[in-house]
């Protein structure tokens, strides 16, 4: 038991020594999320550029606290979770958000196709919080949905529906989305609504 404690102590010490030089620190973000954090479907990392800073902050904090990315089935969420933990431990979460927010946002390529007309009907449920143009609502803390990685929106809807996101009792905002996700009756409904969001 003592040996294990010792090993753990060694790793904590290693973690605190930090890694890349200050200038290169946030290149970590670009590693997965691609040039200007415009997303990398190859590694299933969504576009971050253009995301609201308050939304980025909350999600990073959620990852760090295990509110998001904890379930075993959420492989990508786990990958992000360890990064969130590290950003918080090194007290640079705010700086990382600033770095992302300053990047040049590029319109994402559409990868999801569905029935736009059916999607429009489904989207009426979303309007109140996310806006008719998918522009988001800072007061309600609802992020914009337009100009995001469409495959990522679909993945998150699946995660909300499957209880992989928004199920943690501390995640009150996520719980609202989980409830909405539950009303999406099947995979078709998910791709339809995302296909409609692509038109916004």
């Amino acid at each position: 038991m003592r040996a294990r404690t010792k090993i753990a102590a060694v790793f904590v010490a290693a973690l605190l020594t930090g890694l890349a030089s200050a200038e290169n620190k946030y290149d970590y973000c670009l590693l997965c999320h691609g040039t200007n954090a415009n997303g990398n479907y190859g590694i299933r990392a969504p576009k971050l550029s253009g995301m609201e800073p308050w939304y980025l902050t909350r999600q990073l904090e959620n990852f760090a606290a295990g509110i998001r990315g904890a379930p075993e089935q959420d492989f990508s969420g786990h990958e992000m979770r360890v990064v969130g933990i590290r950003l918080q431990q090194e007290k640079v979460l705010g700086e990382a958000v600033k770095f992302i927010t300053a990047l040049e946002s590029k319109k994402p390529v559409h990868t999801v196709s569905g029935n736009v007309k059916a999607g429009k009907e489904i989207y009426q449920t979303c309007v109140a919080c996310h806006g008719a143009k998918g522009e988001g609502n800072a007061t309600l803390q609802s992020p914009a949905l337009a100009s995001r990685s469409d495959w990522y929106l679909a993945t998150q809807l699946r995660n909300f529906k499957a209880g992989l996101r928004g199920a943690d009792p501390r995640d009150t905002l996520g719980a609202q989305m989980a409830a909405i996700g539950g009303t999406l009756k099947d995979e078709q409904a998910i791709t339809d609504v995302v296909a409609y969001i692509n038109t916004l």
Partner: protein
Amino acid sequence: MNRKFSRRDFLSAAGAVGGSTAVFRAAMALGLMPAAAHARPQIAALRKPRKVLILGAGISGLTAAYELSRKGYEVQVLEASFRAGGRNMTLRHGDRIDETGYPQVCQFDKDPDLFFNAGPARIPGHHLHLLEYCKELGVELAPFINDNRNAWVQDDAMFGGKPIRAREYLNDTRGFVAEIMAKSLKKDDITAPMTSADWEQLREYLRQFGELDPQFRYLGTSRAGLASHDYTKADVLKQPLSPSELMKSRFMFIMSFGETDDQAAMMMEPVGGMDKIVSGFMAKVGHLVQLESQVQKILVKDRGVEVAYRRNGEYVTAKADYVLNCIPVQLLAGIENNFPSEFATGLTKLPRGKLFKIGLQMKERFWEKEGIYGGISWTLQDIQQIWYPAHGIHRQKGVVLSAYTFNPEAGERFARLSPAERIALAVEQGSKIHPDYGKYVENGVTIAWHQMNHMLGCAAQWDAELSKQWFAKLQRPVGSHYLIGDQVSYHPGWQEGAIASAHHAIADIDARERAGGTVSA
């Protein structure tokens, strides 16, 4: 803990680590590849100045830099990491392990024998090009022990989880199978014409195969080991193990590992660590390599290629007549580019390798007291393997590979844990093989290749279908841009594959230059 693993899983897993040998063989059978190794390109000296940018200082990038620079090409290598070598990585005292989320520092004692090959760790005798570079670069080689019959086999499914020696599993199994065959096989069952002499020869083969007695019974064999090695007394064979217990184990899918094309003796390793190959190349081309330069944009032009990269937080643009690119496809897919859509789509199609390794520094070489000198113990637990170092024999300490899984799900299970938890789990599982395992552990390193910075994946996970659909498309140059690395070889996961990809690309560049030096698309 351990998911049921089908035979197919095992084969594809063995293919992944063994470098898709099966895929390679299939390609050979179709006559797509020559039976001998490809010829090393003889690059002609340049007639006009040409600039080549190489993206990534792994084995493929360094090979290309070495070959091209000495023929007059102006070469610059951009490497995203703080170190060169790519997945050829040897860890020693004080080395940084740049895992996103879980950075670590290697705490091994400072000692030339205390190192861990976190990436490639063995070289078969037919990897001719790599061996030729070792010779040329002055990399000293030593035998590597891959297969040790004194090592252990452990599976919770047999003998209540108690480990047995590999020689017992292999030879008792063979004995029982041979006995059943010899007793049940009838001459009339064989449709091929067979003389009595042939028939007797076949029965003799079975007897030899299993070491059966004159009545074709299997009563034990010295191949499975003696009960005692007290040579003042007559030899006593070990009692054969229970066949029904042996048959419960899925170890049968791994038992021939050390007989496969890339894993059979004679295997080698560089003395002092696999990265001696990297230092050998770097001694020749290190001055051309720029570290901590992360590529952000690749634009293929009518003439040449433009590349933008980040260095010290600034964007820098570079232009070249040719680009050789060994950035892992899963990362390349996220870099801004103007590749044709088919090529760009191909980049997103290859699943990431999730191979995982742990190396532990042991304060005592306890395994040598068990008669184990080098080689591998196998278990059906997530750690899958324990490797014993063949160097530093009889010294006080040693670094033991304490987990090496080819199973992507096991790799994910480990990666999810913190380094300390990974080690605790490896100790718990290793204790089923060596009961006092934990008490020898001083410190350790854990490598989740799919979480390593600038990699986020081990060997590209090609299968037959993916190869058919995408390999040629990714291998073919886009203008003057060439994708290289073991990821575009039929031997991913092996340095020889990385070298083959580099040779393939530079041979093409050489042909273009010989044909008049046009670099237009």
